[in-house]
């Protein structure tokens, strides 16, 4: 048994390198809502990794996270198994989805389309589930590169009136990206939406926003910039929204997508990619790398 308290009560592989975990975290489970996120620190040496809350069970006091093993930290996280535990699991962080605070008269009138790209299906799921539980009808698009990367399809299907699937390579559902699907629905199938909630890679959210702006549909996005503390203390997560600087962790993570400066956000998201690579290199080469004067220590 681990000395840590945030136990993994369930682990499931959803797709190649995408994992779902239920974590025992009473304080988070009791108070979290769709739209919020947590920060996981695996152990003493781990970094603080922000992950959206995908589901929660208030009675069993567990919180569900879904993550893609893409870099050093998330790959290391994927090696944890049921019964093991994380050192830290903080949350809920950020604001809950604004749908939850909308008056019901207004929600009833709204025609909402959710757009999930890749792992973005994870944060979309609790929102459509909440809408279903409260009796509202919504539509949803899930898009991914190929069939293998479509996740949570069955769970989302049970919560929405219409579910559309698109894959880049056409291996499942419609061939094309989520924008092709939105255009098809609005232009050819006569669908009318007045609110889009798009969650996925920044590049996808950027292009969805360009399209919905043309179509005149208000769009909410969930931003996932680099974070450290997640409590408003470091400013690493700052974004330009409209003409203002916002901290995604405390002012977001959801924002009006038509106001977000995506180009800046995407550049900022790259900031540690090369550093991280260098760390890995160092880890492989060991301490031979660690003396002053070594150029590779100093480059940007």
């Amino acid at each position, binding site marked *: 048994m681990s000395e840590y308290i945030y136990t993994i009560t369930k682990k499931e592989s959803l797709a190649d390198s995408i994992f779902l975990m239920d974590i025992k975290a009473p304080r988070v489970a009791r108070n979290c809502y769709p739209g919020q996120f947590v920060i996981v620190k695996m152990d003493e040496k781990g970094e603080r990794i922000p992950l959206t809350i995908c589901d929660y069970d208030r009675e069993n006091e567990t919180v569900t996270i879904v993550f893609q093993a893409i870099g050093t930290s998330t790959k290391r996280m994927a090696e944890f198994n049921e019964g093991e535990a994380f050192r830290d699991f903080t949350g809920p962080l950020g604001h809950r989805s604004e749908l939850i605070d909308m008056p019901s008269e207004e929600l009833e009138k709204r025609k909402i389309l959710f757009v999930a790209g890749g792992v973005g299906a994870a944060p979309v799921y609790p929102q459509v589930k909440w809408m279903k539980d409260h009796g509202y009808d919504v539509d949803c698009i899930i898009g991914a590169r190929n069939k293998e990367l479509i996740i949570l399809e069955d769970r989302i299907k049970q919560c929405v009136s219409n579910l559309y699937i698109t894959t880049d390579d056409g291996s499942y559902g419609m061939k094309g990206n989520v924008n092709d699907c939105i255009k098809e629905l609005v232009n050819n199938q006569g669908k009318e939406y007045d609110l889009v909630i798009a969650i996925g890679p920044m590049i996808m959210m950027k292009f969805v926003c360009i399209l919905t702006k043309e179509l005149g549909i208000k769009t909410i996005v969930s931003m996932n910039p680099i974070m*450290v503390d997640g409590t408003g203390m470091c400013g*690493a997560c700052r974004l330009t929204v409209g003409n203002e600087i916002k901290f995604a962790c405390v002012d977001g993570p959801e924002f009006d997508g038509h106001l977000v400066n995506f180009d800046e956000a995407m550049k900022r998201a790259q*900031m540690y990619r090369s550093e991280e690579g260098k760390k890995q290199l160092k880890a492989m080469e060991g301490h031979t790398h660690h003396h002053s004067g070594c150029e590779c220590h*100093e480059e*940007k």
Partner: protein
Amino acid sequence: MDVLKRVPVKEQDPKVRAGNFDEVCLGYDLEEAKDEASRCIQCKNPKCVDGCPVAIDIPGFIREVEQGNIEEAFHIINKYSALPAVCGRVCPQEIQCEARCIRGIKGEPISIGKLERFVADWARENKIKPEAPMEKNGRKVAVIGAGPAGLTCAGDLAKMGYDVTIFEALHEPGGVLVYGIPEFRLPKDSVVKAEIDNVKSLGVKIETNVIIGKSITIDELMEEEGFEAVFIGSGAGLPKFMGIPGENANGVFSANEYLTRSNLMKAFDENYDTPIIAGKKVAVVGGGNVAMDAARTALRLGAKVYIIYRRSEAELPARVEEVHHAKEEGVIFKLLTNPKEILVDENGWVSGMRCVEMELGEPDESGRRRPVEKEGSDFNIELDTVIMALGTSPNPLISSTTKGLKTNNHRCIYADKETGMTSREGVFAGGDAVTGAATVILAMGAGKTAAKGIDDYLRSK
């Protein structure tokens, strides 16, 4: 021995220490401490005590040091301060206790801070713990934030018999002591952790990873978890930016981010996962302790470092000792200089900074001479990293989720000076959350005041 002169304290050689994160000041040994203590004239009316925000019995503990009774000296200090090893290192002694020392009129004041540090370090090495608390009274008090204010308030309440739980947002207790002030000034494991363990040994529970206002609210703590009073010691952690062009470029950080990566996340140690962009040519904007800490951290990570400050040396708000250390280590001071724009390359990374020279004009409301731009004096510095150390303000998370909590227009929480009580009955506050960014010892003083305020309030309830 010349009684007018201090016993000098050993320090790591500047050239060596500029390349490591080990502590700069090595402290006194027993003989040195006794010699320094013997310089104290044991004033009947000790002015030094008036200069200490928690009024430590300074002549009292120094007398014990002189006689070699270090354990006794420790218990004297502990009546007033729960974090002596910390304060002995980071208090601005030169403007507090030592500024008032009678010895200082003719010669050099007694090194009170260094003696305090010696006593605390000796006690830790000899496993001396603070005296055990009195009997528990079973009444529950919640403390928000495990910084100096929260730790002091919790420690004092535990000594009075209360059942105290501290809720801390981060994964480690300590506040700025763990995430802000660097290892080379305040060792984390040996000093900070040990003093926090002393607070725990009084029976204080610390629950990390709990963000009040998100994980649970103050109202819920009082209504559902049975806490009869709450102390807010949540600090002033929200960093400011300048609002100049280029500030969101890659390579621009708040000092809080840079220092948090290095200190709390230990990014300087390659065995830890968190990355940090060290930079080759770094500018730190600001002139306070935070700026000095960021500059000296960047230096240790291998960079050439500039401090950019818009007033002159005399106005630098940082401690004299820190400025002196930074200079010794090779930090370059560009004073009377103000940034106008951060220059950005085609990939979105910092490439430099356009600055303007300043001169001092008429005094402003604060009494300091106001810096004004020298027309046409713009110049560029080539850089790859910029660190903004412009000050911080309280985070609105708690004030915006607690009913009836009065704040001022700087978002500081209102608290009564005598009792520490806020505009909400049973809710107290102190430290940076109330004053805005200040000092460790003032935060501790506020924690002490509030502990007494809470005790009085609960007794009369």
